[in-house]
């Protein structure tokens, strides 16, 4: 019973979120709920605000007004409370952002040791398991610059997973990758989704969206224009804006 009520609360909820960059209105009245175990894929033309929305969820971007709730609790504005909340949300960036001076293993153990207070020995054991899971265990002693983009991004995913996050955000995780490396990263994400991870994925990979998403959100000009199940959205988009977008990316 207690479990049920807890699962009724969305892991992530945005209410009437507004944001401007100067004169540019980048987020307009964004309302969104992500349930436990749900995979939400956000698509839309560049400049539609989808990355910005993704980054507001752990407050890498501040918002002008509205509310962001994590498991029903408002996102703290700053300080230790914010840091503690961020520790519970994973974030994977377009440009990997691994720590350049640390080894792959140290990249994955930093958070568990310094933030969660885990013992080095335990953190390293867990890190090696995660690195093996994403297929880069043999690279553990190297530094990021020695790895390919695809390998770096898989390490970045392992780094997030090491924090046992409640949800993970992916901000265009394959956009900076060479084509032949995209699938190795998507495969890891598919496996995560199947394992029940709550995910918000901003991406241009429509096949991934169709295959893995529980729900697709289409954004344009800072607004959520349309949302629905992937098959329904891709086969019968309800709005002209979405039809134009889907047409523009088809046929190559």
């Amino acid at each position, binding site marked *: 019973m207690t479990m049920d009520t807890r699962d009724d609360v969305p892991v992530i909820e945005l209410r009437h979120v507004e944001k401007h960059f100067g004169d540019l209105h980048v987020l307009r009245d964004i309302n969104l709920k992500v349930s436990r175990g749900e995979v939400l894929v956000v698509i839309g033309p560049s400049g539609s605000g989808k990355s910005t929305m993704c980054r507001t969820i752990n407050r890498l971007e501040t918002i002008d007004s509205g509310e962001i709730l994590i498991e029903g609790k408002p996102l703290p504005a700053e300080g230790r409370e914010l*840091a503690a909340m961020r520790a519970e949300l994973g974030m994977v*960036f377009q440009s990997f*952002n691994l720590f350049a001076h640390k080894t792959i293993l140290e990249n994955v153990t930093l958070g568990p040791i310094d933030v969660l207070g885990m013992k080095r020995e335990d953190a390293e054991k867990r890190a090696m398991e995660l690195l093996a899971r994403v297929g880069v265990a043999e690279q553990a002693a190297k530094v990021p610059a020695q790895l390919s983009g695809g390998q770096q991004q898989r390490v970045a995913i392992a780094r997030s997973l090491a924090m046992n996050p409640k949800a993970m955000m992916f901000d265009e995780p394959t956009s900076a990758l060479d084509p032949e490396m995209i699938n190795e990263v998507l495969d890891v994400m598919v496996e995560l989704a199947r394992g029940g991870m709550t995910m918000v994925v901003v991406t241009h990979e429509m096949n991934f969206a169709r295959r893995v998403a529980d729900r697709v959100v289409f954004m344009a000009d800072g607004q959520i224009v349309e949302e629905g199940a992937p098959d329904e959205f891709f086969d019968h988009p309800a709005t002209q804006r979405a039809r134009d977008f889907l047409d523009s990316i088809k046929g190559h």
Partner: protein
Amino acid sequence: MGLSELLSTYGQLYLTGLVTTWWMTAVSFAFVMVLSVAITVMRISPLKPLRLVGDLYVQIFRNIPGVALLVIIVYALPNLRLVLDYRTCVIVTTILMGSAFGSENFMSGINTIGVGQIEAARSLGLTFRQIIQQIVIPQALRSAVLPMTNLLIAVMLTTALGSQVPMSPQELTGVVSYINTRSTGGILAFLIAALGYVGTAAVIGLAGNRLDKKVRILR
């Protein structure tokens, strides 16, 4: 006075001068590094007053001639009932100037880190302090080895300000002034001292290059 006469009369004095220059340099540079880190942390802190103080510090001490700063410290500090001996005055002058340049070196090192790594660290839940300790300072230190090597040489040369005040034992340039007031060593007396500076700088430069190769961050 010829070379052999200069060396036989003042050889010991030169040697003491060189060693004095070395230890004044070492002491100054140790403080320069500590103060540079502190000033730099202020300049990147989230608190605006701290940032202002840090920026102001750099603007002031980067832009005052060393001799002028030394005069201020020697003659003005006693008015604040702070009387330092002459050697300490020279070292303090060197530290104040050196750390302004040192902070600039760190700032350019920090600029190479990129906002992405900082965002990744914030996303993991690291606090400002942890990010500074774990991500910013180690990378800034490692990418500032070459400019800091230059700064170490500059700090050594700045200790020559010691020739402007009475000190015992004197540092290398002070030794030359002393010799030239007593006898006619002329340019040769300076050349011997220059050899000490150039030799030391060459060793520092080599060591700096090796250290840089060892710790440089692959990007």
